[in-house]
Structure formats: C-alpha cells, structure tokens
C-alpha cells in the first residue's frame, strides 16, 4: 500500500500575508527563507527539523495550549541555559529573529511583552 505523506508544519502558511517580506533564518545550522510572520515551528519544519507538538496543525491559528515545546528568546524571560529535553534547542541566528507565533514564550506578568512577529 502506498503511504501518501502530507507533512504538517504546525501553523498556517503565511505566504501572501499583508507583509510580503521574507526573512532568512538559520535553524540548527540550516538556512531557511520564509515569509515574515511565519512561526518558528513552521520554519523549523521547512528546514527539516521536526518539532514535537500536540496542539498545533497547519489548519489552525496558533493556540499555545500544550506547551510541549517552548522557544527561548535571548534577552527575554526564560533564557537561562537549561539542559532539559523539554526546552526547544532551536536557536535563531541574529539579527534575523522571528517572533514566536507558533507557541508563545512562557508569559509572566513581570516581563515586558514580546514584539509581534517580524524580524
């Protein structure tokens, strides 16, 4: 029997979004160019890095409930280096840094808000 592979990158495709800009990011050594507003999760998926998740799929806007993988952003809360499997070890090369629209950073009332996605 033939298996039809339908890759799911976790969040909707942003091609043709209001902002037509694209950004190039390097994820775990692989460069990938995606439309601005794309989630880290999707960009990673396109770069061949599969990030586990439970609550995200291409057909849904980011929901952020399973918290299976989180993104740490340098200079923001949660940047302490942790050798823990639950933290996504996906570092983005600067200055091309996407905001995380796939799964919001662990939010605390004591932190300033994260500027919306666009690098």
């Amino acid at each position, binding site marked *: 029997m033939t298996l039809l592979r339908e890759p799911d990158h976790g969040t909707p495709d942003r091609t043709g979004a209001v902002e037509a800009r694209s950004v190039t990011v390097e994820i775990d050594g692989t460069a990938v160019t995606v439309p601005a507003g794309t989630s880290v999760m999707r960009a990673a998926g396109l770069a061949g890095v599969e990030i586990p998740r439970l609550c995200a799929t291409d057909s849904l806007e980011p929901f952020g*409930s399973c918290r299976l993988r989180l993104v740490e952003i340098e200079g923001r809360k949660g940047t302490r280096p942790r050798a823990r499997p639950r933290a996504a070890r996906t570092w983005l090369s600067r200055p091309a840094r996407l905001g995380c*629209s796939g799964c919001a950073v*662990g939010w605390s009332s*004591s932190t300033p*808000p994260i*500027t919306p996605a666009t690098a």
Partner: protein
Amino acid sequence: MSTVYVPADSAARSVGADQVAAAIELQAARRGCVVDIVRNGSREMTWLEPLVEVACPDGRVGYGPVAPGDVAGLFDAGFLDGGDHKLGHGRTDQIPWLALQNRLTFSRVGIIDPLSVQDYQAHGGLIALRRALAMTPEQICDEVTASGLRGRGGAGFPVGVKWRTVLDAPAWPKFVTCNADEGDSGTFADRMLMEGDPFMLIEGMVIAGLAVGAHEGFIYVRSEYPDAVATMQAAIRTAYKTGWLGPRVLGSDHGFDLEIRVGAGAYICGEETAMLESLEGKRGVVRAKPPLPAIEGLFGKPTVVNNVLSLASVLVVLAHGSDFYRDFGVGSSRGTQVFQLAGNVARGGIVETAFGITLGQMLEQFAGGTASGRPIRAVQVGGPLGAYLPPTEFDLPLDYEAFAQAGAMIGHGGVVVFDDTVDMAAQARSAMEFCAAESCGKCTPCRVGAVRGVEVIDRIVAGQDAAANVVLLQDLCELMADGSLCAMGGLTPMPVRSVLQHFPESMDGSAARTDQQDRTGGARR
C-alpha cells in the same frame, strides 16, 4: 443643621454602618436635631469602621468604631459639635495613620458624596479631562509615559507605552477596557475607589479613549462587588446626563460611551486576555500572546486593558503634571502605590504611599502588628500568587525591582499578615489548590501541574520521602513558571518557592514525624 458622614462602603456596611446611620436618624428625630446624613465612601481605615464623621468649623471630626448602641451616648456627648467621647479621634485628617500617607488617587474617597457631581468638581474632578481635551493623543501618551506610571494591576507595564501602541495600531474601532475583576485575596482598593469615587474611574476611561482614539469603553467588574456595580452604574447614568459621557464629552467633538460588564466569579477573568474573552461573551480562557491586546484585543481590535488604579493615577498625572507624579517613588517605580493591609493586622485598610517605604515600616507604622498580638511569622505581598516573606526580609523596599530580585512581587498591592500560628506548608498547598480550582485549563503546566503540586506537597507533609519530593516540587515549580501560558500558572510557584526558601523547616516532613511522636507518646525519645 449638622452634617454627619456615615460610610456606605461595603466594608463599613459589613460591620453595621447602615444600622448606625438609622440609629443616628432616629436619635436626631427624638432629640429634635436636624441632621443631614451623607453616605460617603470609606476613609479606608477599616479598623475604625463604621467611622462616623461630623463636619465641624475647623474640619471633620471622627468617631469609631461606632455600634448602633453607641449613638445615644454620642448625642449625649455633643458629637454634632465635635464633643469629646471615648470613641472620638479628633480631626480625621490628623489621625497619624492618614496624615503619614500620600493620598493622590484616593484624595477624594471618603471625603465626598460618591455620586455628587458638585462634590466631585469641588474636589479637583474634571481638571485632568479638561486638560486632556486640549491635548493631542500623542501628547497625552507622552505625558503619561513621562510620569513613569506603570500598570497597577500587577504586571507593572508602563501605561503610556501601552497607550501609544494602541494609538499607533491602524485597525478601527479601538476599545478601552478597565479590569476591575479584583480577585486577589486581601485586595480591595479597586472596590473602595469605585464605591467611593466612581467619577474618577469614568474620567480616567474617557481620557484613555482620547489618548488612543477609542470611543467605547467597558468596565469589567467582578460579581462579588454588587455595591461597586450599583454605584458605578448610577455614576454612569449621571455622567451621561451631565454630558461627561455620550456623543459630545464636555461639549467637545469627542464621543465616548461606557458600559459595565459583570463577571461570573472566575479568578482567571482578571487575566487580561481571559477578561477580553469573557467580555466577548465567551468562556474565560486565556489567549496566547502575541498578538497583544493592544494590537488585537476585544473583538480582534486594538484594546487598552488597564486596572482601576492605573486609570485613576492617570488623572493625577494629567491634573498635576508628569513631574509632580514622578517626584514620588524610587528607581523605576514612580508615583504612589495603593497598598491594602489585611489579614492578621491590628490596623487594616488602605495605605497609599510613595514607592520605597520598606515592608517593615509599613507593618510597624500602619499595620501596628498583628490583631492577635502574637509575633508576625509571614507576610504575603501581591495576592494569592505572591511570595511569603519572613521578618528577615522586612527591610525590602516596596518597589517593583527590589521585590522581583527577592523572588517576590508587589502585584496589586495586597499585604496579608500571618502570625506565628500559621502552617506554612498548608499555605504552600493552598497556592497549588487555588491554581487547580481557578486554572482556565487551557495549558498543560497549569492545568496538570497544579493538581500534581497539591499531591507532592501532601506527600512531603505526610513525611513520605520528603527530601526527594521537595526536589520534585522544585522541578514542577520551574516547569510551571517557565512553561505556563499566563501568569496564573506562571506565578503559582512563587508562594510555594518562597515557603521552600524562607520556611524550609515547614517542608521537611518533620511535622509528620512530630505528629507520630505525639501519637506514640514521644517513642523516638
């Protein structure tokens, strides 16, 4: 004719203010005195409630706490002319507890008849709004930013910056919402302000609308505050009649409509995105951020979400200028904070003071120790998700950064005091239990973590492998703090960690060993 003030604030009513007012009316009729009873807000000295005040030529003289049975004696003592009585405190504004404070946002509360338009204007009302109407939105945002005012709901985000983000957002329409879902234990400042000076909040909402270009506002009040809801609704009706709300605010081209929405008893609806969901008529579930409410908030439109005290503070900034406001406070905590003293305190109530006073000074000068007379063991600052601090931390200055560095938070300014009979392990457990009960259930660390937290603490208290379970609890706290979607799950570890840090002896399983010893008649010895 004498004017007598008896608070209609719900804290005063809960200890019999209505009966006292009725007794005064009855005695006055019997004695043939003409007395005008004004039901004011509270002077926020809850330990003196019901506080009866009499207008005398050189100021208001206070008597309290007055029971209905004391009223005849007060008349006998000539209290209508400020006569001496054992409940008398002399001039109310000279009571040290009040005189030592910096009353900026609470300057009118308790002084005026809450629903009197004349009183409001006679005590500095509308000055800020008139000034704002003569400014551009950018100027208002800049002025508020320059004052250094930070959100008083707990997060402490700069108000001016938030407003500017909404102003710059291209979408239309925009909304102004006020978060009056004051659910933190030991907090009551929002309620007292709404019950004692409702026009102040209305004026603040209109100014926020001017600053961001919004023409519609909502005040989200918790259902546990029926008196505040009634007062606010009456004030809004009056404000429409007098032209402070409606299509032409104070005769200007700016229109602003304001409505009250009442919650349904969910703590999580005090979280701003859950509050927006609830305002939209949905279940109060937290939204993932970004997008921020300032960009996509109520009905997906740019929305200001501010606490009652933040909006009230804006009036002080605009009426007196940003320099005046910024001159209060320390570091990056500018202006005054409205602290609420509660729990086991001798003198509870609202202490509005500049940031920078130490916790110890607050407890000594204002709280006056515990009500039970026993020594203080712990103080929880910032609501049910704030840290428990032991007396060794009482030198901490009350400002956002100093508290954050100490692993604590100021939050909404609630200060709850416990004496040495408190069971700290039970307090830690109650934080997790509270989170399990109040979590919206959307994200895993909060929904599952809180339940697991209760179980782990129960094992520690029972003495089951306590050391290993404390390590597990620390790990769980880290996961909840870093992984939760919002501050509910993110801050629940704060009280738990503070107990582990400051009161480790209560979390080492020794309580269980002591119990066993007691049961076995001290067999270990």
